[in-house]
């Protein structure tokens, strides 16, 4: 399935991550007002942007679940929620940390921050709602409905900085000119980090979806074969025993 593609994705993600981190932390020049504190933006912007896009992906998948009852869409939508929740949490936390020296406060109830906090609660609500059902089909339908109701929050987050007077600034204009406020040397690492975070997201999404398929198909012959083969591989190394013993 996706097995052969995974090591390549992992490799590309690792290279992007290292490049983005080195460029953003070491090579990009400091901001003329914010100094080195602005380097937080290189993780803040990619994580919040992806947190919203992962919600949109989940909404498209949820529509597919409700309209065509596609099982695979539900599997990937389920995998999306915890990753999206952690992305939103990182976005909120890094934004708050950046805000302390920049705004003089870690939190303010302005439209952008509040709607992003609602996004986080939506993700948590979707995970909780799903876990409240025993039946896979009922869980799929209920969480798909909640996802689609919550999608109204996404344009609110995006346009909040235009519709209302927020402390959070609108997106900066990017310029190709080196003399502009945001020259390429500032925003190129942001894009690299964006792709890197997307790579981490895709990896986690694929791994989680594969696990979910295994759980749902646990009675199928191919999964039983996989479990027996896994048994044969692990026994000589005695790998899993120690770790799982500690967890139990």
């Amino acid at each position: 399935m996706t097995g052969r593609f995974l090591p390549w994705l992992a490799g590309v993600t690792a290279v992007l991550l290292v490049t983005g981190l080195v460029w953003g932390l070491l090579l990009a020049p400091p901001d003329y007002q914010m100094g080195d504190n602005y380097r937080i933006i290189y993780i803040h912007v990619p994580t919040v942007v992806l947190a919203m896009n992962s919600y949109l992906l989940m909404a498209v998948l949820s529509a597919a679940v409700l309209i065509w009852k596609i099982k695979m869409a539900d599997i990937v939508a389920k995998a999306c929620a915890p990753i999206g929740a952690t992305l939103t949490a990182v976005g909120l936390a890094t934004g708050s940390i950046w805000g302390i020296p920049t705004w003089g406060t870690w939190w303010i109830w302005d439209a952008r921050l509040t709607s992003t906090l609602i996004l986080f609660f939506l993700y948590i609500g979707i995970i909780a709602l799903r876990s409240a059902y025993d039946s896979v089909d009922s869980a799929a339908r209920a969480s798909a409905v909640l996802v689609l109701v919550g999608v109204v929050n996404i344009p609110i987050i995006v346009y909040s900085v235009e519709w209302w007077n927020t402390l959070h600034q609108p997106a900066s204009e990017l310029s190709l000119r080196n003399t502009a406020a945001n020259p390429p040397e500032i925003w190129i690492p942001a894009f690299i980090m964006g792709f890197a975070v997307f790579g981490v997201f895709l990896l986690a999404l694929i791994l989680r979806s594969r696990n979910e398929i295994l759980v749902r198909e646990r009675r199928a012959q191919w999964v039983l074969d996989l479990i027996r083969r896994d048994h044969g591989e692990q026994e000589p190394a005695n790998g899993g025993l120690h770790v799982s013993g500690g967890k139990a």
Partner: protein
Amino acid sequence: MPELQFSSLGDFLEMGGYALYVWSAYSIFAVFVAVNLIQPYRARRKFMKQQRARLEREEQR
């Protein structure tokens, strides 16, 4: 070409006086990457172990 912005390791760690903010933010990011990539592997191993135990129980019967 981009140039190194810090002249020494101490300079780099200091982050122009914003060390606490920059490094705590990047630590949270590191935890995010680690958790999201390690969790599915642990879940898979747990599933395999549980199912193996179930198979063994069923075979004994």
